[in-house]
């Protein structure tokens, strides 16, 4: 562990992560969950506003998503758990209490492993709880507005043991957790949008001595800020403990990170810590999770990123698909939209798209086509990956036209572009025909259709059309020939055979 010491201090870090569950309805009410762009107070009902007479009703969808997270983090799921009320008066807490799982969380004793941390991080517990409302304070008018859209949305609180020793490990944990929860469909893990927030506990001590007094930095909403907050806390606590001749100690307190000054600022000390008066919620009773149900959730779990990666490597590396290729696709899947309630994707991710297209075709060329042409054109159009522009079936037809040499690659690119710009329900071959992109196959030679005579004709015209380029080629700049070839391809709508055109062109130029 000595390699992690900072000026002879051992750093001890624990993280509590609050993750918004991606469910269509809230945790205990039937109101729809909200996005940031929904107008205030349009996604709440009488329960969310804590009207008298309303009662909570547990949304089983939230529970099942929470179970996915617990199983992926290797937790033991408690057959019986319960909900408690955490009391405090605040304007973002309509009922005067938050329903959480203080005494008996539904999952405990898990572990998180990442190749980049090198040792397992122990997960202490995972609990279900309600998110708060949002208050928007106007300091000038001294008023506060309350938006109940977020109030009562399901949250997962994932608590680690204080197992991290460096800010980098902490950052790696949060990033991997984010990726994991997205892959499971549990949360979109978007820190900017507030659907993933961290509280970080930090203390330092001399090796061999008992742990120091910890400070908690609350509500951090970016990995960058978290690393900065931890680094600042290490320096701050270090300077307190290293003050010569002083018996000063770090005092236990709650702090927040200020992104403007890049410092942590004291919110309250331990003495001011509120008494939350936890009480078992008398309405919700005991939450029973049968082994059968837990198993059903386990069977329906989407595969974890690490196992998908491994499977793809095993299946396709022999066909020449590289690790790099696979990572490109997997990264695309990481940022794709997460569906609500953990529903099986109706939208196909990049990995699935590739695998479906590669079925019965050469994986390497399918991969290359998708990565270099499809993704390339998408990014040129400023569009994210999606299977909705060109379906798997359409892409398959396109690939088959290339493979059977009914269409040249340049023609196929042209067609692809056209299909992206103006989508059509027509069969791909029909589209190609409409655009006159199909090669009229010479049944005997199986060669591309444009016969040598017409090709020679086009080549001669190119020499007239591009005198500067031709001069450059003649001067020995051979690469310029590609510009001329490009002109020829445009003229022939891609029907020309590139190699043959080059031969003819060279022949003409050296005459």
């Amino acid at each position, binding site marked *: 562990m000595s390699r992690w010491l900072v000026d002879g201090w051992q750093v001890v870090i624990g993280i509590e992560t609050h993750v918004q569950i991606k469910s269509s309805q809230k945790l205990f009410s039937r109101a729809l969950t909200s996005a940031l762009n929904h107008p205030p107070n349009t996604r709440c009902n009488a329960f969310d506003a804590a009207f*008298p007479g*309303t*009662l*909570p009703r547990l949304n089983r969808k939230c529970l099942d998503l929470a179970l996915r997270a617990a199983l992926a983090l290797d937790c033991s799921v408690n057959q019986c758990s319960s909900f408690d009320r955490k009391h405090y008066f605040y304007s973002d807490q*309509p009922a*005067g209490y938050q329903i959480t799982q203080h005494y008996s969380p539904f999952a405990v004793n898990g572990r998180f492993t990442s190749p980049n941390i090198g040792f397992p991080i122990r997960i202490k517990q995972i609990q279900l709880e309600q998110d708060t409302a949002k208050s928007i304070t106007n300091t000038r008018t001294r008023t506060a507005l309350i938006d109940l859209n977020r109030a009562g949305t399901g949250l997962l609180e994932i608590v680690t043991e204080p197992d991290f020793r460096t800010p980098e490990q902490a950052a790696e944990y949060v990033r991997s957790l984010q990726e994991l929860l997205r892959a499971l469909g549990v949360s979109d893990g978007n820190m900017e949008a507030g659907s993933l927030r961290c509280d970080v506990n930090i203390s330092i001590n001399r090796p061999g001595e008992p742990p120091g007094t910890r400070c908690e930095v609350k509500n951090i909403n970016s990995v960058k800020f978290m690393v900065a907050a931890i680094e600042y806390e290490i320096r701050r606590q270090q300077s307190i403990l290293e003050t010569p001749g002083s018996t000063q100690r770090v005092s236990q307190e709650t702090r927040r990170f200020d992104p403007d000054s890049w410092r942590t600022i004291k919110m309250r000390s331990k003495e001011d810590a509120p*008494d939350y*008066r*936890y009480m078992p919620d008398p309405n919700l009773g005991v939450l029973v999770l049968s082994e059968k149900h837990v198993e059903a959730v386990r069977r329906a779990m989407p595969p974890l990123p690490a196992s998908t990666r491994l499977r793809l490597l095993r299946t396709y590396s022999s066909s020449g698909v590289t690790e790099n290729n696979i990572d490109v696709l997997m990264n695309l899947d990481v940022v794709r939209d997460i569906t609500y309630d953990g529903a099986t994707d109706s939208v196909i991710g990049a990995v699935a798209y590739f695998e479906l297209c590669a079925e019965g075709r050469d994986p390497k060329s399918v991969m290359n086509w998708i990565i270099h042409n499809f993704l390339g054109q998408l990014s040129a159009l400023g569009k994210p990956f999606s299977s909705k522009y060109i379906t798997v079936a359409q892409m398959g037809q396109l690939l088959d036209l290339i493979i059977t040499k009914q269409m040249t690659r340049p023609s196929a690119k042209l067609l692809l572009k056209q299909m992206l710009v103006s989508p059509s329900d027509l069969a791909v071959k029909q589209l190609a025909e409409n655009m006159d992109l199909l090669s009229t196959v010479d049944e005997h030679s199986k060669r591309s259709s444009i016969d040598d005579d017409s090709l020679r004709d086009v080549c001669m015209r190119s020499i007239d059309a591009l005198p500067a380029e031709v001069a450059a080629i003649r001067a020995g700049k051979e690469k310029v020939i590609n510009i001329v070839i490009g002109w020829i391809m445009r003229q022939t709508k891609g029907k020309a055979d590139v190699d043959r055109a080059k031969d003819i062109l060279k022949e003409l130029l050296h005459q």
Partner: protein
Amino acid sequence: MLRRFVSNAADSLREKDAPFNAFVSFENSLNFTNNGKGPLNEYSIGVKDNICTFGLPTTCASAMLQDFESPFDATVVKLLKKAGAQISGKTNCDEFGMGSLNIHSLHGPVLNPFRVDSRRAAGGSSGGSSAAVAAGLCDAALGTDTGGSIRLPASYCGVVGLKPSYGLVSRYGVVSYADSLDTVGVLAQDVERVEKVFECINKRDCNDPTSVDERLREKANFLATKSIQRWSGESLKGLRIGIPQEYFPAELTSSSNHILASIRHLLFHLHSLGASIVPVSLPSTAYALSAYYVIASAEGSSCLSRYDGIRYGLRVPPSPESNFTSTSRTYSLSRSQGFGREVKKRILLGTYALSADAFDNYFLQAQRVRKMVRDDFDHVFSIPNVLYSKFSFKEKNANDHGVDGVDILIHPSAIRTAPRLDDVLDVSCDRDTLQDYVQDVLTVPASLSGLPAMSVPMQPDTGLNQARDNQQSDENWPIGVSIVGQWGTDKLVLKVGRVIERLSRR
């Protein structure tokens, strides 16, 4: 023409109610949705003011909700309307159901209609519902019972009051005082009407997470039916009635001998009809009252924390010189003014019971006592508690011929008759307010255990104590007898209630 008739009906009810103060608001429009075929057609029903109604205020008799109108009808109100009933208005109660005399109300105290000129309390907290029924202002009324709030006023006013098993009647739309104890029930002048209304609201509701599922309802109902089959007919042979010895405290035996005499008289009759009278012991009863007040106050402090003056209800705006250092200081302005004395007292007690230092000794201890109280009941009843036992029908059949356990329990509903309002409204320090709590001693065990309990008026035993002139008027005042059954055997409790009602009216 019709409108005039309707508003006349409301005005006439208002006028009739004036001496009692049982109603706090009146329905001005007729319920046109009723198709004339419902089981409660032609029934007028008063609804306690802590049950939400769309279109009528729901004040909970608190300044905090003085102008509050709920955006929805409680499930029970919906069910009543569906059954054809006419909601005649909202009935007075103690603020948020906290109290046993209906004197802690924004709308003022309710007068007991039994003899209105003698100005006696109607009991609480469902005092308005009880008085409305006693005065004949409506056919039946909904009340809520957290620790005796239906049974006690029923006893004081001389009407029938049923607190059903916890979990049978939906609490959705019932303003929470203590979620684990609050139970909606029915008051009426006779058992038949109580039963009729109860049948309409005894429905599973998926909006109430504590609403018990059909399987358990059927199971308990099956056991109740089997028990009734053993003694149906004129003879009560086979009915085993338990008399819990702990339910005859010093307060009852010393000052109110006429209550004791009446219940002896009743038991004598029951015995002569063939019922077995079995003395039983519920040893944890002594602790039940303290446990009840800890749990009810703790839950009350929690349930009432939503009243902050932000989204609805009374708001006392801060003045420029107010202390703005924390949100809670702003809240305290509204809460200090919005809540009455009794409510504040219980919130403070409950807040303390939940504080980190007190939690183990108070709240957890009270939960332990609660379990002991429940175990006591399960121990004396022949019918198992379907909520907690891994009971199977086969086991029950094997025990059929055994004689261990009783079918129901009978005890006085209260330790006294309705007190004089002037005595209890005296807020001087002399009055021992602890007396109000001791009154609950007989009713809270059934609440803690969620058991069905019904108070039925007893025939006063006039043959005794004629000499004590100063007590004489007390002796003529109504007294109720409580019938308590195992969880889910409400049908059995109602059946025994009918027998006792018949005996008392002879």
